[in-house]
């Protein structure tokens, strides 16, 4: 009997596709696998509907505990302006996160970040 193995890239793409389909305010989703633990999916979601004056904060969810697909999903929601600041290095990503090797996966497909 074959045992299913966790495919992080594929699951990240599935999340991105679902999130983009259900939230029309999302402009782009970036997947940041570099330096992430093997079972951790880090997404930056650029969303133009975010209001308020709070700085962005990541939120983490455990998923599929006790299965071969057990993983942690962490989403960092930012406004388009905050995303520009992240790219310019004036707004920090969560501790331990890096844009190195990040990929845009807004349509459920992986693309290297331009």
């Amino acid at each position, binding site marked *: 009997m074959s045992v299913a193995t966790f495919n992080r890239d594929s699951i990240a793409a599935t999340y991105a596709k679902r999130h983009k389909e259900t939230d029309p305010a999302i402009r782009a989703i970036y997947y940041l696998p570099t330096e992430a633990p093997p079972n951790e999916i880090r997404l930056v979601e650029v969303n133009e509907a975010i209001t308020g004056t709070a700085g962005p904060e990541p939120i983490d*969810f455990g998923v599929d505990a006790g299965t071969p697909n057990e993983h942690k999903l962490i989403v960092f929601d930012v406004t388009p302006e905050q995303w520009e600041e992240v790219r310019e290095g004036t707004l920090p990503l969560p501790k331990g996160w890096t844009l190195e090797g990040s990929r845009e996966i807004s349509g459920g497909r992986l693309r290297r970040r331009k």
Partner: protein
Amino acid sequence: MNEAQKLWWEQAKSDHAVFVLLRRAGVHECHMLHYLQMAAEKISKAYLWRSGTAPPRSHVGLMPFLQALLSRGLGRKERQRIAEIFDYARPEDMAAWVRQVSPLAHELQNLTPDLSNNGPNTEYPWPHENPVHCPALHSFALWARLRDREPGRRLVKFIEKAIQRLEQYA
């Protein structure tokens, strides 16, 4: 903050700490939603106790709390102060967000067995007379909306903020 508020606040903090543990562990959705609903109910009661009289004993959920925070009876200055505590520039901005998330807030407060209309709830198999579903095996559409959409994630963060910052607005 009066003594009753302090007691409800302590319980809200404890329930929320369990919610965070469960959310990070990725257990069955019913348990995460159960603790989130309980934390929201208790911070709501902690705030509503500011009048010095007991709020209704039954499940007082997020909506009465959110409405009380935005009540015109508080006066413009106080509503402005509360909006800023919750990271909104103006009460109107906070009110617009509350309108956006009110369906989620309603759904969360209605997850208790007595408010679930004999349907999906976080505790007991349903329907009561002839059970065909149980919470542990149910996939809650609400949980997907809280996890997979920014307004849902912001509501989860709002509840946390409401608990952490109660001393500032109680």
